[in-house]
């Protein structure tokens, strides 16, 4: 194995980065490295990113950063690769946790495992093939919630004053923005009867203003924000 790796690394390093000969040798070397027993393994999504970047780094650093002329190539190559993985994971860790230093020694693959345990469990999920339909439905629900949040924000800001300018003639206070707040966003919602009493407006007038003007207006805004009606 050491001999095979020595041969491949030498081939890679005989040619410039972008030459076809180097790239073909790299095809083989990458396959070998991916199969090295002891290469850090984990299904943690951040780890997978770190591993992906590591393969790009290997090609660019191998020839100046790794000494292929000393014995025990396989063992040292593994250490070299794993230590880079370790640093990438450490970056991810400090990004996630704020810059806190982890003064762990970087001598063997044990370290990567312990660092992985320290990596915050991400709330990011990688679906499986059989779970993909359910995952798409979940994305759809999240998207609906997002529209909900955007709608909430829109009601609060009412950027074009569409909601504020829509009110029963002599009752500017009973506009659609206020009503949306009170009967839609507020939890629990206010009763129309309470709002009518408060603003001294006829209950039916208020109720029909909501139903005939405010509700369709909100519906139109939601559509603009990305809400889609189920058919």
């Amino acid at each position, binding site marked *: 194995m050491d001999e095979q790796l020595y041969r491949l690394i030498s081939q890679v390093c005989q040619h410039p*980065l*972008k030459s*076809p000969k180097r*790239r*073909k040798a*790299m*095809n*083989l070397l*990458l*396959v070998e490295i*991916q199969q090295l027993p002891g290469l850090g393994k984990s*299904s943690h*999504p*951040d*780890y*997978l*990113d*770190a*591993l*992906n970047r590591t*393969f*790009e780094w*290997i*090609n*660019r650093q191998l020839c100046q950063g790794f000494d292929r002329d000393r014995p025990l190539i396989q063992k040292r190559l593994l250490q070299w690769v794993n230590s880079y993985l370790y640093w990438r994971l450490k970056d991810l860790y400090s990004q996630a946790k704020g810059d806190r230093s982890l003064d762990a020694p970087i001598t063997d693959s044990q370290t990567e495992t312990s660092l992985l345990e320290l990596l915050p469990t*991400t709330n*990011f*999920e*990688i*679906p*499986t*093939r*059989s779970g*993909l*339909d359910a*995952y*798409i*439905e979940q*994305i*759809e629900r*999240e*998207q609906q919630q997002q529209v909900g949040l955007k709608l909430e924000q829109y009601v609060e800001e009412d950027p074009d004053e569409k909601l504020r300018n829509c009110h029963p003639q002599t009752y500017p206070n009973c506009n659609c923005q206020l009503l949306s707040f009170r009967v839609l966003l507020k939890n629990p919602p206010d009763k129309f009867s309470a709002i009518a009493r408060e603003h001294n407006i006829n209950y039916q007038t208020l109720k029909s203003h909501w139903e005939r003007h405010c509700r369709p207006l909100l519906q139109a805004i939601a559509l603009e924000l*990305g809400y*889609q*009606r*189920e*058919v």
Partner: protein
Amino acid sequence: MNSTEAPRLTVPLGTEAHRLAKQLATETLQLAPASIKREVAKRVYLNTLAVYAVYSYLKWQAYEPQLEQGDSWQPIICARWDVADLVLPGIGKLECRPLWFGESAIAIPLEATEDRIGYVAVQFEEQLNSAKLLGFVPSVEALEIQIANLQTLDDFVDYLERLELANSFLLGDDPVAVQVRDVLNTRPIAEIIAQLEQIYCNEPEDERAYAVKDVFTGEGIYAGSDRELGEDVDEGDREIELLELAEELLEKLREIWS
């Protein structure tokens, strides 16, 4: 190491790949027709992972792929069309097709055939946290790719090299290149170079010039029937001119690709 032991590289697909896939799937859900939007979002999700897998491999190999230049990056397009393209500037557009473990062929939708230089097969299993690169085929006419007919990643490297060399030649100042550009006019150069490469590699030497001339005219069949009718003398002269240009181009390609 012989070709039956062709390397099957595994690409890890982590947060970044899945975030992109999720983002495009989310946008698709808003843009695709309601009755099929989930199906389309699922397709977009897998296509994005396939594109990302090929993108990663190309980065490992010090190529410079551009994710955001592809149609597969545009929600309004991928919500409508089944495309998984990836742009390699100066070389052309690759189509990255996903398939499941165990499948023996990939169907290529018509919309994923325009201006493509080749098709890379990306295999997924139950766990979507990695993908395998099975191999590639150069630009195809068939709308189906048999996995058994895939070429290796080594062939892929050589193929991309030939296309890159021919691209920089054809975009340069050489009189032959200038003439060829003039003949091709507005047609996509990258795709045409892929066709030229196929002619060069697969056609017998004495038929290459005719095949290249047909690429120049764009529509080989009509050009052929015109020639048989022989009605238009100018047309005949034009044919000869093009054939001469084809010969000259082949000579240049021989120099570049040898």
